[in-house]
């Protein structure tokens, strides 16, 4: 029933040591989604860029407050002594569908960044199988998964792609860029001088009255209405996107206690 593509491909073999700024690539494909991975390794860390290339008009889901779908996942089969950091996600876009259905999604491509940490005595060739799962939607939704095998140490270029992916991951919102004021039934966000604001709440948080209506505004003030009741005092976490008057866009994560 599910789209499965277990044709994991591993390219590029290497020798005994992790090489600074070396990269490897593995790839697998399905109809709507083509998946690949690029790796850059230094002496004590490995950074993987998991890349999903999407066919025209298909989208994948971001791990934020959505009405439908679910975000891609990566399940690693790590060798003993290895550990992995969390997936880091770029800034998604809002997708409002008929019926007021709101999702935060990625079109065209999605590159997730993840750090892997080898044991201190790691040496030699290491193979790390990874199962990537996703739900891709256009008019229809198709779940898919595939297994890639990372071969370390990597042996070719490609570090630039990983660094570019890391650069696209939003950091913490600078405190001076926006002010959050939490009232009994609202969270008011003000970024003086902004041309527009978009707030993307995390998947867990207070219940909202109407995120499709409240989540983006022209101007420098956004008011998010909270639904009364239990849970309304939960911290609000998420991502704020600021469109500046000079056409630039900045973004960052925030927490409103």
């Amino acid at each position, binding site marked *: *029933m*599910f789209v499965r593509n277990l044709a994991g491909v591993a390219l590029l073999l290497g020798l005994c040591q992790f090489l600074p700024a070396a990269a490897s690539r593995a790839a697998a494909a399905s109809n709507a989604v083509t998946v690949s991975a690029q790796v850059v390794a230094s002496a004590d860390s490995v950074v993987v860029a998991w890349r999903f290339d999407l066919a025209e008009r298909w989208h994948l889901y971001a791990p934020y*407050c*959505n*009405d*439908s*779908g*679910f975000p891609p996942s990566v399940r690693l089969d790590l060798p003993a002594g290895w550990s992995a950091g969390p997936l880091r996600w770029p800034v998604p876009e809002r997708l409002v*569908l*008929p*019926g*007021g*259905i*709101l*999702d935060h999604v990625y079109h065209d491509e999605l590159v997730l960044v993840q750090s892997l940490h080898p044991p201190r005595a790691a040496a030699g060739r290491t193979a790390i199988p990874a199962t990537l*799962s996703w*739900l891709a*939607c256009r*008019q*229809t*939704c*198709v*779940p898919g998964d595939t297994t890639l095998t990372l071969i370390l140490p990597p042996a070719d270029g490609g570090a630039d792609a990983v660094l570019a992916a890391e650069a696209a991951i939003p950091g913490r919102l600078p405190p001076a860029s926006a002010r959050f004021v939490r009232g009994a039934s609202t969270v008011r966000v003000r970024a003086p001088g902004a041309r527009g604001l978009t707030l993307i*709440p995390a*998947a*867990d*948080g*207070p*219940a*909202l*009255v*109407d*995120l*499709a209506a409240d989540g983006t505004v022209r101007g420098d003030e956004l008011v998010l209405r909270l*639904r009364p009741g*239990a*849970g309304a005092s*939960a911290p609000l976490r998420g991502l704020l996107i600021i469109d500046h008057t000079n056409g630039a866009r900045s973004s960052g994560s925030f927490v409103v206690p």
Partner: protein
Amino acid sequence: MKVLSTLALLLVAAAALAGVVPGDKAPDFVLPDLDGKEHSLDEYLDQGKIVVLEWFNPDCPFIKKHHLQAHTMNETYERFRDKGVVWLAINSGAEGKQGAGRERNLQAREDYDLAFPLLLDPAGTVGQSYGAKTTPHMFVIKADGTIAYTGAIDDDNSAGTFGKTNHVAEALSAVLAGEPVAQPETRPYGCSVKYAD
């Protein structure tokens, strides 16, 4: 400890849920099933029935998960059908959209061996009055006409594995016992309802 776990559950029941919420009066509707028979919510409530609504799209992977890979919906209905529970599947997909139309749903009724009526709402008015966002999106309506539960069928939002908690079964058990539903709202999961543009 119980307070903490309840709080955690409430936090998971998160945002952006427009439409009805637990405690609201369920919007009345009259919709035809695939055989043309009309089903009126108020008539079922007048008969003292508890009504479960399941938003449905036969071509959504999450509907297939609960109707083909497993038989969550039929089995949950069978557990409660002799206890005054009516289960109605509703397809609010607009003509021409995925999984919409009488012919496709007639085939699905057979393929999925549906144990309950499948109603068509191509204009999406009933779906939007409830704020149905996903297929499946579940609602449990008490015999007094108030919403007892909205959200997911279970606690696993993947397309291929299953949760440990059947939220609808828990809500029905509580309603039948005259007790409050412990978790009256969860985040629904699935495909978006394919409303008209």
